């Protein structure tokens, strides 16, 4: 299911890229958030560091991750498997597995630091103003509860509704996410539904209390391509209707081009580059971003070799001390790149962790060519 290192989602992604570029040139906003971000962000992640507690020399699984999600905007968190994107998204709602800990940073949501607030406050946020959708709908739904009860649960927990009332709302939510015969489906169990339907149920539960932010951790990765498109379409509708901000964890560049306003590129626990979507595709400012773009197969050019990024993401504990991408980078200069790289702002909304790009020594090619 998961594409191997360097082989991001296939041909349809390339087609998406081109289409997205066309749309941009035609000046059509694709229901994205309006204009540049203004005011306080809805979600502000600052200096987030996640460690495996234990040895003194444990390096961060995720280190110094900083980004904002503004009201109504969609932010993509991308990178290969094992780069820390899922950990980052889990850490926001305090859902990390027991073995890992957040050791530094803050996650401000609506003026509250979710990392230090009381458990009670955190519970109120989970499923309330922040909804979450996970990768595998089958295993993420409780097999012994009807889908109606699982959706109704959110309203019972947060609004204190009685079961019968909450089930009525669940019915409307099922209709809202496009499930036919909602009345009957309320009483279905997850295993009686297809993967796409299950993911719709997950989404219905996530939006049951009209959240301001939806965190979606690879919501389409486990689904068929045609179903992926339907789920994305649904998310797009919900964004428009509910003015929903979305943090989308994905490794599908096509989805990013199609759906998101801003991109955070993660590599080996660091943020490599942070930029509006256009910036990533036209002028990537980190060799890793550029490599990801060139790894997307180009449709219409049959029988060419797939471009891959050689090597693989180092596992935690084996991160290089300098630039973490240096061993795989085709632009690396030993003496310089083996020193730690600072996160540098190139423009208001465009930051990179590549010192060579920041110093103007290196210009990278984007994905959308002539």
């Amino acid at each position, binding site marked *: 299911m998961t594409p191997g290192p360097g082989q991001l989602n296939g041909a349809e992604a390339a087609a998406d890229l081109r289409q997205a570029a066309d749309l941009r040139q035609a000046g059509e906003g694709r229901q994205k958030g309006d204009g540049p971000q203004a005011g306080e962000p809805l979600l502000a992640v600052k200096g987030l560091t996640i460690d495996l507690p234990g040895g003194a020399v444990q390096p961060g699984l995720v280190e110094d991750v900083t980004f904002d999600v503004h009201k109504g905007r969609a932010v993509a968190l991308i990178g290969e498997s094992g780069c820390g994107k899922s950990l980052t998204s889990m850490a926001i709602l305090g859902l990390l597995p027991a073995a890992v800990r957040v050791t530094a940073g803050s996650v401000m949501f609506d003026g509250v630091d979710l990392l230090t607030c009381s458990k009670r406050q955190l*519970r*109120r946020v*989970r*499923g309330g103003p922040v909804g979450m959708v*996970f990768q595998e709908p089958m295993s*993420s739904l409780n*097999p012994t509860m009807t889908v109606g009860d699982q959706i109704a649960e959110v309203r019972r927990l*947060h609004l204190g509704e009685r079961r019968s009332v909450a089930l009525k709302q669940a019915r409307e939510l099922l209709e809202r996410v496009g499930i036919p015969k909602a009345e009957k489906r309320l009483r279905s*169990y997850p295993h*009686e539904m297809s993967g796409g339907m299950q993911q719709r149920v997950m989404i219905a539960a996530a939006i049951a209390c009209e959240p301001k932010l939806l965190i979606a951790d690879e919501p389409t990765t486990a689904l068929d391509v045609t179903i992926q498109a339907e789920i994305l379409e649904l998310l797009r509708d919900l964004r428009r209707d509910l003015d929903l901000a979305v943090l989308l964890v994905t490794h599908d560049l096509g989805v990013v081009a199609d759906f998101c306003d801003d991109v955070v590129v993660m590599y080996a626990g660091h943020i490599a580059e942070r930029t509006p979507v256009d910036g990533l595709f036209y002028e990537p400012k980190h060799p890793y971003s550029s490599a990801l773009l060139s790894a997307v197969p180009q449709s219409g050019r049959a029988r060419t070799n797939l471009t891959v990024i050689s090597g693989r993401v180092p596992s935690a504990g084996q991160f290089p001390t300098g630039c973490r991408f240096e061993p795989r980078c085709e632009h690396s200069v030993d003496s310089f790149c083996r020193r730690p790289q600072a996160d540098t702002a190139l423009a208001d909304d465009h930051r990179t962790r590549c010192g060579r790009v920041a110093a103007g020594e290196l210009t990278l090619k984007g994905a959308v060519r002539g």
Partner: protein
Amino acid sequence: MSPRMIIRRLGGSLLVLWLVSILTFLLVQLIPGDPAEVIAGENATVAEVARIRTELGLDKPVLEQYFNWFTGVLHGDLGHSLSTNRSVVSTIAEAAPATLVITTMAILVAIVIGVTAGVAAGLTQGSWVDRAVSTLATLGIAMPSFWLAMVLVSLFALTNPWLPATGYVDIREGFGVWLSHVILPATALGLATAAELARHTRGCVADVLTRPYVRTARARGASGAWLVRRHILRNSAIPVVTVLGLQAGRLFGGVIVVEAVFGISGLGSLAINSVLQRNYPMIQGYVLLSAVIVVLINLIVDLAYGWINPKVRAA
């Protein structure tokens, strides 16, 4: 669970019972030499041997013998005890209540103690509660029930004379009296099963806690009792019910020892005496009853699966 499935399970159970009836019948046929002589014993007269032969129908062809015996079983006639000449069915019916009550209570003790301790340990992995439960469970599994029974008697009946040390009284003599006679044997019998259940429950709860749907429930704001009751318990229950089903059969066999310690004349002592006296009709009755009980327990376990897990209902 659909009616069709229930019927299918019932059919399977009946088939098993029928096969057991054949084996039970063959019990007498498989006695080496002349069964009648063996059953009558070494000092029997020729007349006695002949009487036993006619009594058991051993002078007829095997198939006819089986047919006659099986027809009897279906009508609730299992023949007569060779030692007392009373009907097997009424002898068993007299001894059965004490045994069944103690076994059932032992299962209840096991469920209440085992599941509670297991859930507590599973939810607090690594804590002192968890370690205490694991240690006690290992101890509970290692201790033989007769020893446990003697310890309980010495503690709660002799040192502190709170409960009677021996005997069984019918519930019609009063609930309190009845309960006081049942508690100690049921606990002695059930604790090992409680320990086994506690270990399995702990493992299942620990496993369910790592499942994505528990994370999903947390992401919806569920926690504490809500999370445990709706998301963890039911999903942990299937393996626990399986173990309980296996253990229930074992308890029914293990009750013999506990009956001996507490001086209760139940099915256990009846079975042992019948074996020692080569009282074959009684043994046949006991084996058949055991088979019915084990098959019933399995049926209940199967039905419970369907109730717990909607996927089984559809299968």
